[in-house]
């Protein structure tokens, strides 16, 4: 059985996975970069916080509403993004990531300003027993959400829509010759990944019982992008690697930094330094991400076992 801390880490990993799976579809499959997925998560998080906190909605409808609202935002962003390429898209989504949290400050009466919105924790159903820990219930909710995302995205990747995404990524002209509406397909990819990010944000609110602008700074958007590239673009397994990395690496590096007796300056910054170093080293060692690296290792082991294997 997992302790409270491990349950919380599992919940964190689960909602990170939901966001990363969406970003994998967007960046890996349809070839569009997004530096603004943290802001998409903020949309879902604030939707859930408002609906549960102010309107007293039940959990599942609130999460569905988060998906719908962030998909609507995704329509707007995706329509704009489908006109942009490469660094221009990166710039626009970067501006989205830093611009959107400012709305919380602007409408501080409804959105709570810097302090954000607080909701009541979800109550575990009574049939699980009176002593069922809250953290475990949160982890179950987050994992259920992540599983739904995994199921839907896995089907999407292997469907005609997934093929359309790949076609547009590889050659826009060829794709449009095949009858695909390139801008429409790219917008659809943005909508799908925005919906995933919205669900992830909603789950984040449920797990932390808080939606505050501090959680959705540019750092979140950047770490989502780094995690998805590091995990391995273009495969949903890569998103699992990425989510594990986002959750476990800070814990490990913090433990490591605290285990030595270092000066405060050094020990405060050591986790960050390790994170930066891991990003660089992983990109230089495994240009295709962890998933591609693991696959190469597995196939090498297999080939060395089978005599005559090519």
């Amino acid at each position, binding site marked *: 059985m997992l302790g409270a801390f491990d349950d919380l880490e599992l919940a964190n990993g689960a909602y990170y996975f939901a966001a990363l799976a969406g970003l994998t579809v967007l*960046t890996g499959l349809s070839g569009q970069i997004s530096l603004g997925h943290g802001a998409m998560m903020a949309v879902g998080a604030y939707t859930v916080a408002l609906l549960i906190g102010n309107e007293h909605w039940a959990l599942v409808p609130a999460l569905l509403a988060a998906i719908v609202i962030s998909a609507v935002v995704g329509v707007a962003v995706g329509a*704009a993004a489908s006109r942009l*390429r490469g660094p221009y898209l*990166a*710039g626009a989504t*970067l501006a989205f990531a*830093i611009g959107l949290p400012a709305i919380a400050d602007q409408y501080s009466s409804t959105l709570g300003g810097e302090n954000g919105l607080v909701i009541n924790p979800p109550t575990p159903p009574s049939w699980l027993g009176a002593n069922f820990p809250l953290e475990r219930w949160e982890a179950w909710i987050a994992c259920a959400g992540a599983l739904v995302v995994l199921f839907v995205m896995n089907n999407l990747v292997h469907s005609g829509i997934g093929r359309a995404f790949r076609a547009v990524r590889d050659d826009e002209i060829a794709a449009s010759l095949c009858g695909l509406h390139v801008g429409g397909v790219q917008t659809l990819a943005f909508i799908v990944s925005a919906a995933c990010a919205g669900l992830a944000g909603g789950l984040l609110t449920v797990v932390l019982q808080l939606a505050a602008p501090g959680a959705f700074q540019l750092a979140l958007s950047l770490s989502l992008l780094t995690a998805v590239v590091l995990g391995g673009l273009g495969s949903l397994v890569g998103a699992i690697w990425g989510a594990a990395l986002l959750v476990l690496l800070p814990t490990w590096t913090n433990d490591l930094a605290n285990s030595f007796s270092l000066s405060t300056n050094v020990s405060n910054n050591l986790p960050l330094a390790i994170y930066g170093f891991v*990003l660089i080293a992983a*990109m230089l060692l495994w240009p295709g991400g962890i998933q591609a690296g693991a696959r190469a290792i597995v196939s090498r082991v297999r080939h060395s076992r089978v005599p005559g294997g090519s």
Partner: protein
Amino acid sequence: MTKFIDLTLNGISTGAVYAVVALALVLIWRATRIVNFAQGAMLMITTFIASSVISSSGSYWLGFAVALVSGLVLGAVVERVLIRRVEGAPPLNAVIVALGLLILLEAIAGMIWGNTPRSFPPAFSIQGYDVGGTRVLFAPNDTFTVLVVVGVALALTALFRGTAIGLKMRAAAFRPEVARMLGVRVGRMLTLGWALAALVGSLAGMLVAPSVFVGPNQFDPILVFGFTAAVLGGLDSFAGAAVGGILLGLALSYVSGYEGSSLVTLAALVILVLVLMIRPAGCSRAHRSAAYERPAHEGQNAAWHARAIACDRRRCRSHPVPGQRGARCL
């Protein structure tokens, strides 16, 4: 009216700093086709070095010179050690390496100098000019900043348009194979591009440090707005970056003065989206940057590129897309 003038002047001086960062980003984009997200951290390191030199030696200009030299070295080292290895990889890998470098450099700076921001002396007086008995929000130091921006933009344009080395850098960036065939030392050109960009970046750090202070994370907004300015101006144009920076500074200054500073980032988003919806490749010379796109078929257009480089050498500025009408120059 006084407020309007003050906001305008303030916008020009902050915009000038965005413009310098934008120039550094454009330089790297033109030299290596990479957006350098580590630029903010690189200029932070050089500004910290300058800060240490100034506080130990007491001479501002010695620190200034040290910052520029260390920028030059840092840029060259980063390109040679890190960026060179991701050159053939997908473009996102370079972005991630740059982000990793950003995080690593900020952590290293925090380890060495601590996370508390420290003050930084300006080059010239920051006491505003006295115009008809009232002090305006524009000081000799701001004049210096604006002059630096104009100087850097002109120098870079002259370098890329008018000198052999600039021509080689452009060739190396946009068609490395062909450039190599024509005898250009491509690797050196890329290193030079990064070194120059880091030098320009360190200049930006020196200019902005007096107002934002020096700390590991103090320059992040500068990078974000500098990148916004570069995208606004079109990543292929130095003049566009300079103008984009100044205009962004002005717009944000008005928004912050009249509507409140919490709206500044939102305003940057709105401006960027509006501009990009009208011109998806930035304001300046969209047709020209289209002409610089790599031809679709790798290896087939070597002759076209050789001619394009020759045509560049003749300074005729009408590189057309192959096959398009009006391709008279080639």
